């Protein structure tokens, strides 16, 4: 690519619409005194491409328009606009670039509006037109335009092909992500290799992750296998224990069953006797029951012999009432007046019944006293009363005796029948029992049978319990065996799984992924080495060219990544200390040249080289060689230099001589300040053409 032309309109110290510089396709020199506008010119290129301005006070770039919007607009233009009451004012830079068969026109414009006699930025504009064969093929504006520009001129390279000498030291730092390393990356398209490297690493990592995951799963599988194996052993022991229990219970079952069988056999062979014996026992029980029943029948006779027998003398019972009356009437017993009453009356000297006075000596008293007996007829009377009452009750009872006796007779008859029945049964039982007389021999057998029965009684529950326990334990055994089989199946399943998991395809894939990563890494490193190696080589060529006439500049440029530094070394590789400013600038320029050269030669990326001022500081013997070096290094170089020539001896200036003599310097300009106006704000830069060759 090649810068063709630039036109500045009201840009900083450049007043008016026509401030054009045509660039040489080879070398363009722009000279100027201090404050003539050299840096402003350099700013214009940075501004049109990247919308940035260099701050000479802070030695840094102002990347945000807000920071520099107020200084962009040419002051003279402002004054005139205010005077003429112009409402808007533009600042613009137009840069024409040639890229092969295309012409690219980049125009950046800031529009200022008059607000209370102050021009404030109200709009910003960027336009890119692509012209081919005289016709506009593409038009871009705004962010699209900026994107297009960045594609042409990557941001990471801007500090190198638009070389601001003041910032040299900062852009030549070698640490990771520094402008230098980023620039080299951009030039050598190392990003692509880095990206490819990263992709390869990621790919390898993914393959490894897959396998690791499988391995991890395998570990899980291995753990499960181990656990299952342990559990199988535990269950085996449990099975042994259960089997032992079963065996033990079977022994018990067998023993008790044998005893039961023997006892039952004995009982069976003596079944008749047993039956007989049992029958006898049953008969005895029945006999006892009958006897109890009979004893209950007997007790009900008491009323007959204690009470009903008096029915025989019913008449005498009934006549007692009359006897009692006679006793009262005739016998005076119980007395009509009780002895107690008489005594009481005598004591009171008054009859308690009729009230007759019984004063002593009175006839009534004598009568009363005659009634007092030595014996207690009152008590006799009471007894007779009780007897009478008893006879009266008995008389009432005897009225029902016939019915009661009839009922009793019936019951008695029934009871007798029952008694007879019981007796009959008892007789039969006794008869039977008599026939079931146990002989001595039988008695012995009876004992054996009893023993056999006892044996059965004792052993049967034990036997049944043993049988139940066997069933339970056999069931447990069955379950445990099934459990072991399941665990073994699972073990086998896990074993099969492990071998299948990490299949060959994955292994091969990982193998080649590793290889790819290594290759990419190697390639990336190689390209990196090539890039830096070539840069260093090219830098050294330029350095030696720049310093060939300066004996104090010795050594070889070293780009030292390890120590993140660029310096010169002597023949044996030792760093040369305490180099002067001129050498330092030479080194910086040489490296820059090296970068751009490598970009062009190795990677086909060619950029115009625009530099502001550092060469000016070279002074002495380095200056012209450096300029020459620049001319030779770059396809297109635009060198902005401080004009050291005295105004009256400009022709003696070495740079002017070079301009005139060097054929590749086809364009040269001088920047001068139009100082006619007293008001410094109205002063502006003039572009004077020194050389204009095609």
């Amino acid at each position, binding site marked *: 690519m090649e810068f063709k032309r630039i036109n500045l309109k009201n840009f900083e110290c450049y007043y008016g619409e026509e401030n054009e510089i045509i660039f040489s396709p080879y070398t363009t020199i722009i000279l100027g005194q201090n404050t003539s506008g050299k840096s402003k010119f350099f700013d214009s290129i940075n501004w049109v491409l990247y919308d940035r301005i260099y701050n000479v006070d802070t030695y840094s770039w102002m990347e945000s328009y807000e920071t520099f919007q107020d200084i962009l607009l040419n002051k003279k233009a402002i004054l005139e606009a205010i005077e003429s009451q112009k409402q808007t004012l533009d600042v613009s830079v137009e840069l024409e670039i040639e890229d092969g068969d295309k012409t690219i026109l980049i125009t950046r414009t800031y529009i200022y509006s008059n607000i209370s006699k102050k021009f404030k930025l109200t709009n910003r504009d960027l336009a890119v037109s692509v012209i081919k064969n005289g016709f506009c093929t593409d038009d871009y504006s705004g962010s699209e335009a900026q994107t297009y520009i960045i594609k042409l001129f990557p941001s990471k390279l801007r500090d190198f092909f638009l070389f601001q000498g003041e910032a040299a030291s900062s852009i030549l730092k070698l640490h990771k992500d520094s402008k230098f390393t980023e620039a080299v990356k951009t030039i050598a398209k190392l990003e692509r290799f880095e990206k490819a490297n990263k992709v390869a690493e990621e790919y390898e990592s993914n393959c490894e992750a897959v396998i690791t995951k499988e391995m991890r799963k395998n570990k899980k599988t291995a753990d499960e296998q181990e656990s299952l194996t342990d559990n199988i052993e535990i269950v085996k022991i449990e099975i042994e224990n259960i089997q032992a229990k079963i065996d033990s219970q079977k022994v018990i079952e067998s023993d008790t069953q044998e005893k039961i069988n023997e006892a039952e056999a004995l009982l069976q062979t003596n079944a008749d006797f047993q039956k007989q014996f049992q029958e006898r026992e049953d008969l005895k029980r029945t006999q006892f029951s009958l006897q109890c029943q009979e004893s209950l029948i007997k007790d009900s006779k008491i009323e007959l*012999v204690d009470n009903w*027998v*008096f029915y025989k003398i019913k008449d005498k019972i009934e006549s*007692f009432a009359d006897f009692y009356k*006679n006793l009262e009437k005739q016998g005076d017993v119980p007395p009509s007046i009780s002895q107690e009453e008489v005594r009481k009356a005598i004591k009171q000297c008054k009859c308690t019944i009729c009230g007759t006075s019984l004063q002593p000596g009175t006839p009534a008293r004598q009568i009363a006293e005659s009634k007092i007996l*030595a*014996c207690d007829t009152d008590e006799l009377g009471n007894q007779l009363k009780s007897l009478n009452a008893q006879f009266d*009750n008995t008389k009432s009872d005897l009225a029902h005796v016939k019915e009661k006796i009839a009922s009793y007779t019936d019951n008695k008859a029934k009871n007798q029948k029952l008694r007879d029945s019981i007796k009959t049964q008892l007789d039969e039982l006794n008869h039977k029992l008599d026939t079931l007389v146990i002989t001595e021999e039988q008695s012995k057998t009876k004992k054996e049978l009893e023993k056999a029965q006892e044996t059965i009684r004792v052993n049967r529950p034990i036997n049944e319990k043993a049988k139940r326990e066997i069933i339970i334990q056999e069931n447990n055994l069955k379950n445990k065996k099934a459990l072991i089989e399941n665990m073994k199946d699972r073990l086998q399943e896990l074993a099969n799984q492990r071998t299948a998991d990490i299949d060959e395809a994955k292994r091969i894939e990982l193998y080649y992924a590793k290889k790819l990563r290594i290759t990419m890494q190697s390639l990336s490193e190689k390209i990196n080495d090539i890039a830096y190696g070539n840069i260093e080589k090219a830098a050294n060529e330029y350095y030696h060219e720049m310093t060939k006439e300066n004996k104090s500049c010795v050594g070889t440029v070293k780009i030292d990544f390890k120590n993140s530094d660029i310096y010169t070394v002597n023949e044996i590789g030792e760093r040369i200390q305490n180099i002067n400013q001129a050498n330092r600038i030479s080194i910086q320029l040489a490296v820059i040249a090296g970068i751009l050269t490598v970009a062009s030669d190795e990677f086909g990326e060619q950029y115009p080289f625009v530099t502001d001022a550092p060469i000016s500081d070279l002074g002495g013997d380095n200056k012209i060689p450096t300029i020459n070096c620049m001319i030779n290094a770059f396809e297109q170089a635009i060198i902005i230099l401080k004009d050291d020539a005295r105004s009256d001896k400009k022709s003696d200036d070495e740079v002017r001589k070079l301009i005139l003599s060097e054929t590749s310097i086809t364009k040269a300009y001088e920047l001068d300040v139009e100082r006619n106006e007293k008001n410094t704000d109205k002063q502006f830069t003039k572009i004077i053409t020194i050389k204009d060759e095609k």
Partner: protein
Amino acid sequence: MDVINISPTVNIRIAADYYNTFMAQQAKGENKKDARDVFIYDYQRFIWAFILGIKSGQRKPLVGKTEAAFKWQQINNRTEISRLIIGLCLQEKYGNSPKLLKEDFVKHSKGEYNLGDEIRVMVEEYANKGFEIIMNKTALNLSYIEDFESVVKDILDNENI
């Protein structure tokens, strides 16, 4: 305590013959109660004899050998029976001469006469007569005393002895 009473501790006596026939009978060997069907206890037999005796209206003095059958307490414990027996005896003794009761009582009170003993003797003598009657009945019916039907028939026949 009643003023006319028989001492509970006194033995009631029966003629030896009657005792041997009707008390000691069926009393050896087996349980007496089991052997007797109608009058299980001796006192019950005695009461029946007394009833038959007083029904006859005749007393038969105890002469010759007698046996102590039981203590009066056995009858005395059965208050109703003892009252009936005493009342019947008083009725027999004083039925026609009620005034004599008071006189005898006075004497009894003075200690000149023991009315209780008098009553006891009456009871024994009436029973004695009753045993005689039972004996006659037994002659006709050997198992009379334990023949339920005979006894019941006899009880219900309050016209005849």
